[in-house]
């Protein structure tokens, strides 16, 4: 894991860029940006040693609003881009950010394998249970009876995806849920997630006030989880499957070995070429 300084050298504001977000006023993604910059300040990381990698979506615009390195990649492909970056530059702190559509639909298979590979990445999924950017279609985490989209006028009729249970089964090393309405609590969890070695999965309930206005109710329905963090995957699985998806906290911390590729060349170019001589 990257060496972390003890005291913050920069304020949270120093990690924000001069670009004004185009998110709708009231969108939860503003708070996530604030939590992320507070966490980076708390970690005392130099800006040139951090990269935020995203896919496509309202949430995936976040790298542009930070002053660290960033890459606004292709829809669903944030995790492979970030994995490539981290294995090539293990000295960097790599944060991956995006939405539920980006991460669980088009990027769903990358999500499974990122958990399984356990490269030292922190994945922030700003989950609003909808495709916000493309004007409000159902996503994998949308409740089955959500009938507000003209594409699914009678609801999707499909069970929502359970990202944290899937992350646990696939091998993620740190599993947490946060809420955009609790920015300081979210900053704390992001800080812990970055510090924890391996693949850290942080689901952040981040309301889409435009296409999922009822998520304003999260203010009263989201609450702290009634359990302490466990290191026991079986216990975590049982708890996650019984939960309604509105409890927050660090729910599981694992200790699987992380994937670090051998960066030393194992043979020379000459050796390689000699294998092709006919």
């Amino acid at each position, binding site marked *: 894991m990257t060496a972390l300084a003890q005291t913050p050298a920069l304020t949270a504001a120093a990690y924000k860029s001069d670009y004004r*977000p185009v998110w709708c006023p009231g969108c939860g993604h503003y708070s996530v940006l604030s939590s992320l910059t507070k966490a980076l300040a708390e970690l005392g990381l130099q800006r040139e040693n951090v990269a935020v990698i995203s896919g496509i979506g309202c949430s995936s615009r976040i790298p542009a609003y930070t002053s660290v390195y960033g890459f606004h990649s292709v829809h669903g492909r944030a995790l492979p881009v970030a994995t490539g970056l981290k294995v090539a530059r293990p000295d960097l702190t790599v944060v991956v950010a995006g939405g539920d559509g980006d991460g669980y639909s088009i990027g769903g298979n990358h999500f499974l394998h990122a958990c399984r590979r356990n490269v030292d990445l922190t994945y922030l999924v700003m989950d609003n249970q909808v495709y916000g950017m493309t004007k409000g279609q159902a996503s994998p985490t949308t409740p089955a009876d959500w009938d507000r*989209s003209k594409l699914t006028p009678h609801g999707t009729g499909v069970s929502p995806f359970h990202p944290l249970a899937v992350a646990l089964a696939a091998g993620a090393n740190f599993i947490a849920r946060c809420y955009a309405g609790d920015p300081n609590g979210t900053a704390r969890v992001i800080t812990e997630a970055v510090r924890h070695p391996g693949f850290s999965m942080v689901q952040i309930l981040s309301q889409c006030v435009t296409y999922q206005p009822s998520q*304003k109710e999260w203010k009263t329905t989201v609450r702290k989880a009634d359990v302490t963090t466990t290191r026991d995957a079986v216990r975590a699985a049982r708890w996650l499957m019984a939960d309604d998806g509105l409890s927050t906290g660090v729910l599981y911390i694992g200790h699987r070995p992380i994937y670090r590729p051998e960066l030393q060349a194992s043979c020379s170019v000459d050796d390689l070429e000699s294998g092709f001589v006919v």
Partner: protein
Amino acid sequence: MTDDVKDANRIDSVELFLAHALTLENEAADGYQEIGDSMAVHNNPEVAGLFLQMCKYGRMHADEVRELATGLDLPHIPPWEYSWEDGESPESASMDKMHYMMQPAQALALAMKAERQAHAFYAGVAASTANPRVRELAQQFAAEESEHVRLLGEWIAKYPPADDNWDYDPDPPAMPE
């Protein structure tokens, strides 16, 4: 809040108090700036102007606190370990209450709520601290916040209340056909 919790959150040193005040004022200003910018981006220049004005006042107050802290070694406190009542800085006008079509009276009412929360924080410190200098500073800051509440009240009186159909948008963010 139980008495135990209140005691745990009691602020008894000038450095700790000024660290709280500085963060409160900085986060208030940052929040107003963010809301003002988002209103400007969403073509609501009047409300943007009000929030950016509030931001300017917030920055001035932060400068005043910084000046009071000159020569003192303020402690570093992680964001989640401040003695805020609900975990968040009290003068933050919360973004989740914002709407791109909101009208000035509504914007100022939200700013008023934030100022009242700041007043309650300072008054609470003044009432609970054991340090006379902290009490004196907290009373002074609480009085300033009261003055902001009064000025905001005058400001609000200059604007008509929001129209009944204030959020009617003839071209709303549309669900695709």
